[in-house]
């Protein structure tokens, strides 16, 4: 089974702090994604990466950055956390080719609260 893990299930930070959210997948997937989930808004794509050291902005990249130094790990960084970044953050991965190329596999999510 594909496994996507996220470093924390719950996180509480203060305004202005630098926040790191880590995501690791064990299926050698090329593509990795970061979403935020807010009630009524569904999932919105923040950033995605289709290879090591490659990244592309999604729909709402402002206030976020990402890092992908290794294929299995994709980090989301909040340079200076703000209260409007309080949300559920979901990481996902998918293969670039093959029969399963379009299926994204999700981690359990990190619920971030910024005070």
């Amino acid at each position, binding site marked *: 089974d594909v496994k996507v893990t996220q470093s924390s*299930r719950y996180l509480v930070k203060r305004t202005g702090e630098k926040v790191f959210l880590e995501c690791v997948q064990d299926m050698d997937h090329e593509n990795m994604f970061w*979403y935020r989930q807010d009630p*009524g808004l569904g*999932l919105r794509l923040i950033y995605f990466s289709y290879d090591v050291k490659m990244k592309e902005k999604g729909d709402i990249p402002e206030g976020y950055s990402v890092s992908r130094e290794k294929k299995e790990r994709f980090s989301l960084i909040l340079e200076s956390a703000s209260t409007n970044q309080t949300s559920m953050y979901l990481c996902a991965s998918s293969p670039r080719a093959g029969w399963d190329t*379009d299926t994204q596999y999700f981690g359990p999510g990190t619920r971030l609260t910024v005070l």
Partner: protein
Amino acid sequence: AQSVAQPEDQVNVAEGNPLTVKCTYSVSGNPYLFWYVQYPNRGLQFLLKYITGDNLVKGSYGFEAEFNKSQTSFHLKKPSALVSDSALYFCAVREENNAGNMLTFGGGTRLMVKP
């Protein structure tokens, strides 16, 4: 641009009755369509997808969905609902020529199955 709409925030159904969760989409070319389910405090789990072929797609846990090109819909169905089906359901779409496997998600529909 690709988009997807889930017109119902919540669907209520009695256990044993059939259920339908609605989804409509908009893409420029051929759509790839997905349903995901989210149980409380969990990440999203893949249910089923339509890429090509038969319009009726069968997925996990007895769910199925029907692709209707003329109505641009991909409604999720189950003949007999279970209380354990209560969860948040997301429809997602990707255009065939969308590089990077980026999905666009709907806002989600909460399914409540009552005993």
